[in-house]
């Protein structure tokens, strides 16, 4: 066990997978000598060489498509998109191609591809270095969508992603890269893609979140426990697609109250699906409306600090929302 940051855990996972399986390679912009603009691949070029850690041309569509082709040929590509905001040029390759290949080929061709990309706001990145893009992809059957919120899960889930025979979108909360720390085993463990994780048990209200917001939700839950005696359960969804319905329903059935937190803009964000599931399948257990706390419906997060903070969901806003709903 070592205490490390989220990004160190990701680097460790990639290092181990490269060492374990010769079919694993990494490509993306600046992943080579530069070690990635966030340093997620630092040292891997030196260790594994230019054949396995490849600086791509500046073209996301092809980063993904090369990954798809190589995956169909049974290599195990890890493709890095430098910022989630730049995944959109590759949208067709992900949605029409990677996601549908297994289905359209009647199960003959599979695409064991991992696409890693940092997402989310609060780092002074403005409209094009702050986006949350998970909800677009959580709508696409055939994809798996994973977002870790702890270094332990980051390592274990990334290893699962690399070994998964399906295309996995692996979104990394970049604000947490260095801000989130935790214990990480040095062993070769995996965390399965699929099951959510109860980040904090509680009886009064269920808070559903993922990524940086799961981290913040735990902080908020501790705060309202301390200050208001509210016992909030925090469910870290971790895998957005396929969604762990059971975990969501179990928690709501226990607490009767549901708050869904995400930093994306509100409308059609991932919380809409969580809320819809609850409103259908846990309706009889609800003691109050299903609430969503999310970013405002504006095109993207502004750069100026004042506006960024207005946009960002944070522990205080979560705590306030917990208090409101608990009081309902």
């Amino acid at each position: 066990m070592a205490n490390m940051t989220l990004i160190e855990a990701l680097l460790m996972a990639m290092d181990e997978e490269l060492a374990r399986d010769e079919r694993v390679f990494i490509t993306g912009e600046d992943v080579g000598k530069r070690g990635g603009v966030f340093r997620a691949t630092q040292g891997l070029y030196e260790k594994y060489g230019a054949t396995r850690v490849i600086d791509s041309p500046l073209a996301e569509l092809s980063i993904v498509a090369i990954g798809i082709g190589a995956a169909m040929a049974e290599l195990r590509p890890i493709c890095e998109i430098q910022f989630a905001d730049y995944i959109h040029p590759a949208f067709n390759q992900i949605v029409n191609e990677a996601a549908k290949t297994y289905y359209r080929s009647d199960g003959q061709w599979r695409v064991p591809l991992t696409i890693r990309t940092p997402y989310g706001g609060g780092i002074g990145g403005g409209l094009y270095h702050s986006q949350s893009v998970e909800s677009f992809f959580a709508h696409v059957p055939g994809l798996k969508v994973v977002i870790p919120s702890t270094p332990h899960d980051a390592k274990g889930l990334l290893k699962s992603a690399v070994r998964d025979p399906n295309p996995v979108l692996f979104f990394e909360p970049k604000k947490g890269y260095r801000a989130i720390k935790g214990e990480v085993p040095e062993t070769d463990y995996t965390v399965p893609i699929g099951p959510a994780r109860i980040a904090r048990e509680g009886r009064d209200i269920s808070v559903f979140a993922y990524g940086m917001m799961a981290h913040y939700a735990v902080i908020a839950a501790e705060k309202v426990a301390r200050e208001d005696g509210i016992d909030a359960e925090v469910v870290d969804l971790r895998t957005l697609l396929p969604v762990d319905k059971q975990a969501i329903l179990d928690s709501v059935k226990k607490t009767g109250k549901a708050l869904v937190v995400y930093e994306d803009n509100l409308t059609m964000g991932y919380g809409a699906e969580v809320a819809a599931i609850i409103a259908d399948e846990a309706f009889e257990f609800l003691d109050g409306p299903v609430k969503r706390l999310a970013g405002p419906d504006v095109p993207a997060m502004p750069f100026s600090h004042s506006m960024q903070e207005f946009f960002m969901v944070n522990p205080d806003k979560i705590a306030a929302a917990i208090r409101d709903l608990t009081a309902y």
Partner: protein
Amino acid sequence: MSTETLALPRTQLSEETLLEMYWMMLLSRRVDERAWVLHRQGKITFHVSAIGHEAAQIGAAFAINRGVDYVNPYYRDLALSLAIGTTALDFMLGLFAKVGDPFSGGRQMPSHFNSHRLNIISGSSVVASQVPQTSGLAFAIKYRQTQGMVDPKDTSQPRLALTCLGEGSTSQGDWHEGLNWAGVHHLPMICLVQNNVYAISVPIQSQMAVKNVADRASAYGIVGVTVDGNDVLAMYDVMKEAAERAYNGGGATLVEAKTYRMTPHSSDDDDRSYRTREEVEEWKKKDPISRFQSYLQAEGILTQALIDDYEARARDEVDAAHKTAEAAPSPAPEDTLGDVYAPLED
């Protein structure tokens, strides 16, 4: 570009091979014609045709290691698909979307060729999206060789990746990005553009401001060749050279086959609104099959008896395929739910 006679093959091909090429072109044509008939009869709902493209595709197929090298075809590649090893029945099962359709189990529209066994990749309908994926397949070939995971001389392994598309589809960004990788990484790849002058109704001069698609190769540091796509032997030669280049570490080739589709774009199309009958008739004179037939007859390789024989064989195969496919059951409605995710390995 002579459109009357065929180029003399630079590569020596046995009579047997030449006849096999002829046979594949003929079979493709007859299967294709039957599909149009079935459509007129209301037995199938859609067909997209390879008629006119047979020489380009058969020349290409015979130049690579069929069934081993990766092939990422497009919807017009019926002849190519047959030559690699799929059958008339395979095609008909797809056309009728029946149980046993080996391409997609009835999920995809017809002509979405696929066979994992033969290393034919299942494509989407999104034109050009397969081009950078083919670069990825070629990348994997090179990766395995560089890492010493396979012997580059081992002919049981894929040693190149071939993709086909129409000239219109080269307008897509996917094409640019795919060929750029091919150039930068010197990939064992062939991009075969079947330039039939139109993208549905849009003529090539509304599509690009260059005379030849192959001229664009210079933007990627790869070799570009334009060839008479209605001349199966010229096609074979150019493709053979491209294949050898790929096999020997010489990088990618962009091959442009100048050809013409002799039918409307698909059974949904009516081409009278955008091209003259005279133009179509002009091109029918350059029919790739008649041209090859004349050549083979002149060379004394093909006799009328043999032709009749081939025709009979084709008719039998097409009849049988058609009957079997028509009689086969439709997929169970619940098949809709299968194959969303590949199962985890242990």
